């Protein structure tokens, strides 16, 4: 039983990271109806930025964290301006390929700059555990869970309660109509990329104590975040986090109770099952078009 709870908590913590990456997918998807395949790589880059600020320049953890988030938000805008904006409004396939190319590029360049070693960031949560009875919970895992909940709530409020959030949803439904209604679609898309890069950076920094930062971490975790986003229904913010947590727990449980090998396959089997049975996901809503 204790094992089960222990696995559950570490699964939830891992799942929250998947959820944070999936949140990035969802943000971009909600606003532009495309999936950013470079999301995991943005996370990796955010982690490296934070490492540069904290590990190499010796800044305070929180200042370094904030600096990395700000730098990555700017980088997200830049990437949007250079790669996505010229092909906005073209078929999805083009944008998917462009973001795959961007991810490739970021991965290689990060490998060139920071090398291929595993890097580690010292965080205030690195040491210390919370003991409840005989249950041992590490602070770094709890910090991931807490941060995910805070970010998710903030983003949910942002999308559903603010004018800018409404503008984003409108431009995703019908870009041209939104433009005619006076929504600055280009600026909206640019802001969405900035936010999603910032969220990715949070994921990267929080992840640093759990799995180390290296140039391929974005690819590995990004691929795990797809099942999370699909499970929650692409386009639903709470869905992304719930999907991420479910995938994390499934993976953790499969690693513990099933023979070796199932751990890596389980998330994708779940993904295929979800796509077959309920393609709109757990939280997605299926709208039929009226003719």
């Amino acid at each position, binding site marked *: 039983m204790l094992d089960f709870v222990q696995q559950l908590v570490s699964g939830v913590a891992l799942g929250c990271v998947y959820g944070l990456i999936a949140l990035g997918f969802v943000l971009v998807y909600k606003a532009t109806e495309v999936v950013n395949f470079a999301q995991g790589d943005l996370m990796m880059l955010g982690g490296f930025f934070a490492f540069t600020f904290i590990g190499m320049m010796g800044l305070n953890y929180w200042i370094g964290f904030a600096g990395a988030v700000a730098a990555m938000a700017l980088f997200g805008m830049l990437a949007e301006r250079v790669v996505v904006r010229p092909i*906005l409004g073209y078929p*999805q396939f*083009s944008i*998917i390929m462009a973001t795959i190319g961007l991810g*490739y590029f970021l991965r*290689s360049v990060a490998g*060139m700059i920071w090398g291929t070693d595993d890097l580690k960031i010292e965080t205030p949560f690195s040491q210390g555990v919370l003991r409840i009875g005989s249950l041992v919970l590490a602070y770094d895992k709890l910090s991931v869970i807490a941060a995910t909940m805070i970010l998710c709530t903030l983003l949910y409020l942002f999308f559903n309660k603010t004018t800018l959030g409404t503008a984003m949803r409108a431009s995703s439904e019908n870009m*041209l109509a939104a433009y005619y209604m006076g929504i600055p679609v280009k600026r909206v898309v640019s802001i969405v990329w900035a936010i999603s890069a910032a969220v990715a950076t949070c994921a990267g920094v929080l992840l640093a104590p759990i799995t180390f930062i290296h140039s391929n971490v974005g690819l590995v975790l990004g691929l795990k975040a*797809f099942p999370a986003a699909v499970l929650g229904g692409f386009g639903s913010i709470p869905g992304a986090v719930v999907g991420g947590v479910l995938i994390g727990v499934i993976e953790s449980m499969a690693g513990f109770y099933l023979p070796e090998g199932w751990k890596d396959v389980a998330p994708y089997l779940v993904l295929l099952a979800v796509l077959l049975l309920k393609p709109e996901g757990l939280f997605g809503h299926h709208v039929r078009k009226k003719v």
Partner: protein
Amino acid sequence: MRFLFKTDYEDDIKLFPHSGYLVSYGILLALLLIAPYVLSSYLMSQLVFVCIYAIVGVALLILTGFTGQASLGHAAFLAIGAYTAAYLQKYNVPFPIYFLAAGGLTGIIGAMVGFPALRLTGIYLVIATISFALIVEEILARWESVTHGNEGMRVKTLSLLGVTVPRDSPTFYFLCLSVLVLTIVGTLNLLRSPTGRAFVAIRDSETAARSMGVNVALYKVKSFAISAAITGFAGVLFAHKLSFISPEMFTLQLSIEFIIVILIGGTFSLHGAVLGAIFIVMIDPFLTYLKDDMPGMIAGIAATFGAGPATAGNIQSKVAAFASLNGLKGAIYGIIIVLFVLFEPLGLYGRWLKIKLFFQLFPLYKRATFKRQKIYVKSERNR
């Protein structure tokens, strides 16, 4: 320029629209046939890889280019073909039989992937095919009684009708070339047939295709099966060329390379698959060239422009250091994909068409002829 007046349907579906095509393709084929007696063995080896990549490119073109179903899982189909061949070879099955068996099995698995894919479009399909490929990769690594897991499998030398065909012999090249030519001609014929027309109709508009009486589900599954089967054939050749296969050869990276093949070549014509294959195979020799010769050349240029020997040497060592960076290949791939999507969406073949049209219409060429139209599709959620 030559005007083609098409007066009936027969004119429209001709394999060769006019004799000029026959002449140019004939010359190309003749050049390819004498190639092994002229080129170095390294280049021959690259040419074999071009053939294999082009076969997969054509297969992917049928699925992605003509039916509009994107797939990032073709490395898995290639793996299934390769492993089927390697496994059957252990039981001394002759080449023609395991060649066909590999294609057949891959085709059946392709159809099985096609069924779930019926309900998926766009991004969901891409994600589903990625997860299929990842699952296949894991199975290859774990099913040790058949695939030998991560140790990989040795592939014996190909023997055809009692004659052994080593993997770097001209005969093996001719075999790959003939499979490629057969694939291309077969695909051309497929595309002229009602099936091919149905594929294109589905790509252009699923709703319109359905209202014209096309059985969309059937043709989507067919397209998946045909594409997978051709990839399976390529897998057999791939296994023989490498003579050793292991799961880590068939990763997502390879699937992306196949997508790059058709993306760079151009997704609307079979020429594109071949051009893209040439391009992707030639990146490695290009990088070698960059490492070995480029630094010296740049230093030489710097010296002719008046730089001292110390500066030139400095430049040379800097360029050499840059060229031998680890991730350079990945970065080049990334840049190439982005640049092609942004600036040359029709690919290399599209560029050739533009050049051709420029000379045909010489003073009257308009750049807008090939302009892409923005479509601003409404949300897929409401479709």
